[in-house]
């Protein structure tokens, strides 16, 4: 069993990943800027409820998503704006779901990060941490029943979410069924205010993989190159029949738990350490150092991102909001039940 990618393979692998690197970087950039927009909309009182951002973990999120194909399955969590975009989410949906417009994936019934298009393989999380993993596993089971042997699925969870019973049951089930499931654990050091040492006692969460009999890798979540290498390796392994894969990426949540939280409890020392590096800056420098793009190109990408964001926002701002009178107030899909007194 492979517990981490071996150092020496990396330099060889990296050049192959130029295309994905650049792609992932542009999604990270777009995610960072759209999240900044969300934060400012929240501060301006334009968004009801919470705003949860993924600042500091865009590399992990984008890396896994760029390795997925359109027919694959993706179950992102709260801080996966980058991955969502990379998997094909329209920018407009971000705003729609935060405003709760009638055009939003949930028609205003749910909000913010609770969005997806499950029929397109893009799952919509509920709040209860850990509970999405078995859903994605089940989707892969269905694909197997249907004879689809090429698709894989990936889903994300935080360090805190690994303490849930749901996490355990789902990983074990996936292992027994040998499903092509990649579980990406982002250890951003905190679950809300709770530091790792109050959350688990193992050395590294990747040590759980062996207990499920699955393959596990740890990676530097601040380094997009590392993330891409591991994500490619794990998705390849899943795709070629090696069963579930667990990836543990280390980073630091560079933002509050949600926008109302100033994260004052974060140990300041962490910021100056390894995990506290900003993956977006590192990736930007790396791209330049590799001469895949220069500073002005990156600026143009940023401008493009900003433009697209403004455009999407302007569009969504003209879209209708949920109207209680148009709401069916019916939780049933079955036609005959819509009309029954309950």
């Amino acid at each position: 069993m492979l517990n981490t990618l071996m150092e020496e393979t990396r330099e060889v692998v990296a050049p192959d990943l130029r295309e994905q690197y650049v792609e992932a970087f542009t999604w990270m950039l777009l995610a960072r800027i759209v999240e900044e927009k969300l934060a400012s909309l929240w501060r301006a009182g334009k968004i009801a409820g919470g705003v949860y951002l993924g600042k500091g973990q865009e590399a992990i999120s984008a890396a896994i998503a760029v390795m997925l194909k359109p027919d694959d399955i993706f179950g992102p969590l709260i801080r996966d704006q980058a991955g969502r975009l990379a998997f094909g989410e329209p920018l407009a949906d971000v705003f729609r779901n935060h405003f709760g417009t009638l055009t939003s994936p949930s028609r205003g019934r749910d909000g913010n990060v609770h969005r997806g298009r499950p029929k397109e393989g893009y799952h919509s999380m509920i709040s209860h941490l850990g509970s999405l993993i078995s859903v994605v596993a089940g989707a892969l089971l269905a694909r197997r029943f249907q004879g689809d042997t090429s698709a894989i699925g990936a889903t994300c969870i935080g360090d805190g979410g690994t303490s849930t019973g749901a996490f355990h049951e789902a990983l074990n089930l996936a292992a027994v069924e040998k499903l092509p499931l990649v579980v990406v654990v982002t250890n951003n050091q905190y679950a809300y205010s709770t530091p790792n040492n109050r959350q688990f006692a193992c050395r590294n969460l990747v040590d759980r993989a062996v207990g499920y009999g699955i393959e596990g890798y740890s990676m530097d979540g601040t380094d997009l190159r590392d993330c891409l290498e591991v994500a490619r390796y794990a998705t390849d392994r899943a795709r070629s029949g090696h069963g579930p894969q667990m990836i543990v990426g280390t980073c630091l949540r560079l933002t509050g738990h949600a926008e109302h939280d100033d994260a004052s409890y974060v140990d300041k020392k962490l910021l100056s350490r390894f995990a506290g590096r900003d993956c977006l800056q590192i990736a930007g420098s790396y791209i330049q150092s590799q001469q895949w793009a220069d500073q002005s190109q990156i600026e143009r990408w940023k401008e493009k991102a900003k433009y697209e964001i403004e455009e999407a926002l302007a569009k969504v701002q003209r879209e209708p909001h949920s109207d209680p009178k148009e709401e069916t107030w019916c939780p049933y899909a079955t036609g005959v039940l819509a009309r029954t007194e309950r």
Partner: protein
Amino acid sequence: MSTTYLEAIREAQKKLLQDDSRVYIYGQDVGAFGGAFKATKNLADAFPGRVLDAPISEDAMVGSAIGAAIEGMRPIIEMQFSDFSVTAFNQIINQAATLYWRTQVACPITIRMPSGANPGSGPFHSQNLEALYAHVPGLVVLAPATVPDAYTMLLEAVEIDDPVIFCEHKYLYNRLKIDRLTPSELTFNHARVARVGRDITIVSYSAMVPEALFAAEILEREGVLAEVVDLRCIKPLDIETVIASVARTGRLLCVDESWPWGGVNAEVIAQVTTRGFHLLDAPPQRLNGKDTPVPFHPNLWNVHKPSSKVIALKARELLKW
């Protein structure tokens, strides 16, 4: 050749596996072993790869069914006992029940819940949890009381585009038997007048229906004609049928072996009194299981739930009102 309630459930699953490639069965020991109650006996053999043993992971079992349903499958989850479904409570009430409402994607999963007690089953192999599930928006809760209903309603459950909690009663498994299995006449969302009467309406479901029918026989010997309504579908309730009966009889007695607080009886009484108050000539009454866990000892168990005797007694009281 006769068919039991349990066999009807097996036959329905067999037919579903035969007719619909989207169906599979997942649960502890449902495979080669055929399930703790033999509800899936021989099915793993007959349908290789489609009747799968699950680990002891109810949460993940249900979660996986939801994912499979999203991809177009029609999973049947067998809980080994209804009691163990609560370790999947979150997946059922928050993930499955809300999926359609949140995403406009249907969640056609069926969760089979071997419910109710036999003597000596004890507090954790005996529960009737229909009220817990019925409280939650988005779930359909079915509770067949006859062999044809066990068969037909399970076929319907799998066709329903919403998550179905299918409460099958273990006490009925081998005690109910009919000569020839014929499908039910009613669709799942209709209550059934199990016995026509005119003096009092006894509303009931699942294993309390035979008990209510016994009570009605006792009462008939005394010249009282009780009408017995079998709810069949607990959520949503077909209250029209109940109200129509109360309109005829003027008296309502609800019988349910589960816990009283907020149970099926409470909901039936609330719906009838808010909508058909003027039809009642006497206060509605209810008989429930006692407000304690289901006891192990047969002596205690016997009096924990309503019996035909107690039902008849209560009916007589109500008729004197």
